[in-house]
């Protein structure tokens, strides 16, 4: 018997859409027949605004895209401008970038982990990750002065060197990270209910993942080994020894687990970076007014959500002619509509959460 299908709006305001995002679900009972994602509720026109800002002034705006890992957002942009201008970044600045970038990744993954727990219903895990994130954020605040929107990177380096008290604090944090990860593992990953909810749910086959240009943990969850830090090492990533965790089934559980694994790997990277860090200036030789030559450049980094690219076009003036950001969450969302079909309402939340989107980044 064909029961009537009906439409249900999931969002724009919904506790688990992680912001203002809307999915129009066509449901039969509780089963999704068709899903239409509607982004754009947070479209702020950053790309347009950037055209009216100088190159340096764009940096704070990149913060507001993936506000959970703002350092990485800065990084992709300054990387592109540096490529465009051919600026050499001092060694020390590169190491600082790696450290704050990985810290940012840890912070972002912590939220992703916790928020995913909350989506599945384990609110306590959410508070734990937030509790621990505070300590990561403290470190980043120590170096940059802000808790979320750091604007710490500068074209050709970073804004300031680490303060002295940073080093003991980061050591202390790094020592705790494995224990934190174990706690999340014990509370969420190891939980049978959680596994039942996420294993073999929302499976993305590797070919499809590649076809849809997915990236980041979503792609690696499907078993595709594509991490820019390894595949095309930028900055000084080729000097570190770390592993790229991969999933097997491409289900929600894999995507989730990878993030916790990556936190552990990030910890390793930071440790090595702290060891290898040379002395020196933190800002390269940069002209006072940044006027790149006419031309364009595209640079990519691996942000916490996936491949974050930045395409900058210069017309020789102090303001960029065009800036385009390749935002990983946005492109990862492209497959959502297809992915949701055939799953239940509860799975919709699980799948959406496992993709780990940040609406600021999706809508730009």
């Amino acid at each position, binding site marked *: 018997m064909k029961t009537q299908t009906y439409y249900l709006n999931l969002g724009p305001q919904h506790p688990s859409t992680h912001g203002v995002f809307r999915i129009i679900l066509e449901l039969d009972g509780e089963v999704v027949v068709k899903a239409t994602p509607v982004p754009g509720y947070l479209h702020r026109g950053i*790309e*347009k605004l950037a055209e009216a800002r100088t190159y340096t002034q764009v940096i704070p705006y990149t913060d507001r895209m993936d506000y959970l890992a703002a350092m990485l957002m800065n990084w992709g942009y300054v990387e592109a401008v540096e490529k465009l201008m051919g600026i050499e970044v001092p060694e020390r600045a590169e190491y600082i970038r790696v450290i704050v970038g990985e810290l940012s990744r840890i912070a972002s993954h912590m939220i992703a982990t916790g928020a995913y727990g909350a989506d599945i219903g384990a609110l306590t895990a959410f508070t734990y990750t937030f509790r621990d994130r505070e300590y990561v954020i403290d470190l980043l605040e120590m170096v940059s002065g802000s808790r979320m929107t750091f604007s710490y990177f500068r074209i050709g380096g970073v804004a300031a060197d680490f303060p002295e008290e940073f080093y003991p604090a980061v050591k202390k944090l790094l020592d705790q990270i494995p224990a934190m990860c174990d706690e999340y593992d014990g509370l969420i990953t190891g939980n049978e209910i959680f596994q039942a909810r996420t294993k073999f749910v929302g499976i993305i086959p590797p070919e499809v993942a*590649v076809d849809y*240009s997915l990236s980041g943990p979503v792609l690696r969850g499907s078993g595709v080994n594509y991490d820019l830090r390894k595949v*095309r090492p930028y900055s000084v990533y080729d000097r570190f020894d770390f592993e790229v965790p991969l999933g097997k089934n491409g289900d929600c559980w894999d995507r989730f687990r990878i993030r916790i694994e990556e936190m552990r790997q990030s910890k390793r990277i930071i440790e090595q970076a702290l060891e290898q860090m040379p002395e020196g200036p933190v800002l390269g030789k940069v002209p006072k007014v940044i006027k790149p030559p006419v031309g364009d450049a*595209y640079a990519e980094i691996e942000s916490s959500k996936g491949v974050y*690219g930045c*395409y900058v076009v210069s017309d020789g003036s102090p303001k960029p002619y065009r800036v385009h950001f390749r935002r990983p969450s946005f*492109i990862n969302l*492209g497959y959502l509509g297809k992915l949701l079909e055939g799953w239940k309402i509860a799975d919709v939340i699980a799948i959406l959460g496992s993709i780990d989107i940040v609406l600021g980044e999706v809508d730009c």
Partner: protein
Amino acid sequence: MADYRLPEELMEALKSKFPGMEVSERQDVTLPLDDLVPFMTEIKENPDYAMDFLTNLTCVDYPDYFEMVYNLVSFSHGYTLMVKTRIEDKENPEIPSLIPLWSGADWQEREVYDLLGIVFTGCPGHPTRIFLEENFKGHPLRKDFQWEGGREP
């Protein structure tokens, strides 16, 4: 830094196949509009290139033309390639859609349509606006887009 560009001989092979293509010294390929789909099909399907990952897709509004920019990656070989093509028609810019080749182009093309007004042909019902509402006037990332900010004195 390692090199992720296409080896010269592969580039030559491409050049001979698509005489209209220009290669900059950074190995950015610029194509005539008509060559786009055959070229893309070639570099995707041909196992020598196997550009199976469409990373990025965007468009720039230059005074005289629109320039589409595609960034491609080959997972098996590790090559990257930037492909550009110009749309000379500033009034009704049209370009064939790449969804048949890479499904990941879907949302990115919609974004380009939404913000720059490039129409992608070849897929019925595509593109539609993605960020802005259907009744939004204009395409904001065009240089001639006029709007009012809400700043108060």
